[in-house]
């Protein structure tokens, strides 16, 4: 299996996208489509706790989403990135661009 699964739910004002599986060149378009559908239109939380791997293809999607959300003055958070996802984000050298929360419970109202 090479695919990812992305589930969209609502938590207060936030649309929560829960991502499971690997994010790489073969799977990132699915993530991109889901993110683009919601980003800038609603506050968005992307739960990366179930991500098994993440290459720069996935990082690029996250960065574009953060840019788009900020441009539309919508809130966006990365939630509980798995160890590999966290390391991938840190390895870019600009982890401070990723607003990260350790759990969905920390989402503001």
């Amino acid at each position, binding site marked *: 299996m090479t695919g990812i699964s992305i589930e969209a739910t609502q938590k207060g004002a936030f649309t929560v996208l829960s991502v499971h599986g690997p994010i790489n060149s073969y799977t990132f378009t699915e993530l991109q489509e889901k993110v683009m559908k919601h980003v800038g239109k609603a506050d968005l939380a992307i739960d990366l706790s179930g991500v098994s791997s993440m290459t720069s293809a996935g990082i690029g999607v996250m960065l574009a989403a953060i840019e788009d959300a900020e441009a539309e003055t919508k809130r966006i958070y990365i939630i509980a990135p798995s160890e590999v996802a966290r390391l991938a984000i840190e*390895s870019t050298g600009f982890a401070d661009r990723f607003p990260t929360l350790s759990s969905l419970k920390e989402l503001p109202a």
Partner: protein
Amino acid sequence: MHMPAPRKRLLKARIKIPNSPEAVMHFEAFVRSLEFLSEREKMPLLVAGDEVVDNLLNHGEVGRQGIRAMVRKRASGISLGLFVQSHKRFAQFAACLDEDPPSGPRYNPQLRRWHGLGLTMCRNLARSVHYRAGERMDRVFLEFPLSPVR
């Protein structure tokens, strides 16, 4: 009485990864299975190695032989070698890195794409990253420091 010195355990493993969309997952399973690496040591190999394998598959030309991966642990550090059938696109990329290495990732707003992000990630995770084109095989070598025992 002369006692022969005990032979050092060879901390080395290899795998042949098929040229398929599952290649990244094969590589991950390989790294996760390495008993001579701590969980902490596996993480940078997974992230940087995934990046290189992903790029070889999507921007290079992986031949029928697929990708060969080798991991070796020594007192000086951990080496990851990735080998693919030689291809001119790889040689061009390797030459670019030697002659005019990018200073960092760049965003292309027209394409909405980042360039050089994966290489930056690898360079930040590994002690060294080398792309070497060869006549028969192209090679990528990454060196990682050992993780201190906690």
